[in-house]
């Protein structure tokens, strides 16, 4: 029996041939590479972060599918919004998301990102994530199991491979809409006001 990555390679490539007929070969290649390598930002925004370690370490080993963690937003492709999102976190998520370079994707975990979830009547969490950030894939659960998270990634990879995941373009095109919603809950200043911002120093360090 084939083990490990060989098996995954087969699954990934098996899905590939079906939905790619409309793409030009350059697009196809670009999307193929994008699909095969996904860097996930190491930011546990909510309780879903507790199922991230099993997903990314040896039990479910997401690296088999080319999915691995990235330390900084500059290098990340995917930000996982793992569950509920308080205003204070939303501010940081938006800042982080805007630091990521295109193409970038958002994976939303759990009930809370869809319609408020358990915290539907909480005064400090947002209810619908899609009002503030464009979401590529929702994963069901509270918490989603590692299998669900992997399934979410596989679906995302399929969409990327087919060239359909384009939420970052949506964010740029409808920036005013998103900014309006963000300002409605966060106030005029959406970016967090750090008292000491290192960018204020002349020329950095």
């Amino acid at each position, binding site marked *: 029996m084939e083990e490990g990555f060989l098996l995954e390679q087969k699954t990934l490539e098996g899905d590939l041939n079906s939905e790619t007929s409309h793409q030009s070969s350059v697009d196809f290649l670009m999307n193929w590479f994008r699909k095969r390598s996904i860097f996930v930002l190491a930011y546990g925004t909510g309780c879903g972060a507790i199922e991230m370690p099993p997903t990314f370490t040896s039990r479910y080993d997401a690296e088999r599918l080319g999915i691995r963690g990235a330390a900084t937003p500059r290098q990340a492709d995917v930000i996982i919004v793992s569950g509920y999102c308080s*205003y*204070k976190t939303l*501010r940081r998520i938006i800042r982080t998301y805007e630091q990521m370079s295109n193409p970038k994707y958002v994976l939303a975990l759990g009930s809370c990102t*869809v*319609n*408020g979830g358990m915290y*539907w*009547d*909480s*005064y*400090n969490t*947002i*209810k*619908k994530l899609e*009002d503030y950030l464009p979401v590529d894939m929702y994963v069901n659960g509270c918490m989603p199991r590692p299998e669900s998270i992997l399934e979410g990634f596989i679906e995302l990879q399929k969409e990327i491979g087919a060239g359909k995941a384009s939420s970052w373009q949506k964010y740029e095109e409808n920036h005013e809409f998103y900014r309006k919603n963000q300002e*409605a*809950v*966060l*106030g005029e200043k959406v970016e967090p006001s750090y008292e000491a911002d290192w960018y204020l120093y002349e020329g950095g360090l």
Partner: protein
Amino acid sequence: MFKTIKSNFATADVEVKRQDLYKVVIKYDRLSALIDFLYNNYTYKILNAITCTDWIEEGHFALTYLITTEDRSNTFMIQTLVGREDTKVESFSKKFKQAQIMERDLHEMYGIDFIGNDNLKELSLENWVHTPPLRREFDTLEFVNEHLTFREGREDNVDVKAETKRLRALKKAQKEADKKAKEAADASALKENEDGK
């Protein structure tokens, strides 16, 4: 110990809730003295928590100080009642270091001012301008409805009680109508029979 506390500090008895938990309700002006008394004469040297309960109907906050012995075998609940509006309470952050953060938390959630606490900045909220959230008059669902929207698509929910009532009434009406129709049918059948005879 209980006797001294009753005669010197409290109006009511010390209540033994569990083997490891005593509770006493005292007036606010004796609070500091009682904590000092327990701190100096016994080994109640650790402040475990400060909590506050909002009794809006009775118009006061119940502040509870939980003080534990050094060997952690017994906890004293010292409860004192303070007013709800513009509450100003003496801070214990000089005596117990950890009180600083607990008071900061209570200040944020209830709006209680702790005099002598040098840092009462926002702890977990950011740019909060509404009523302190844990006060009873703050209705969180109302706040949510005012500021946020839920997902559409669930408007077809049926009020089951009303629907049951309606269906029952309908059924009853149906039954009665049936009954009437039956009676009428019976009557007419009877008539026909009679006529036939």
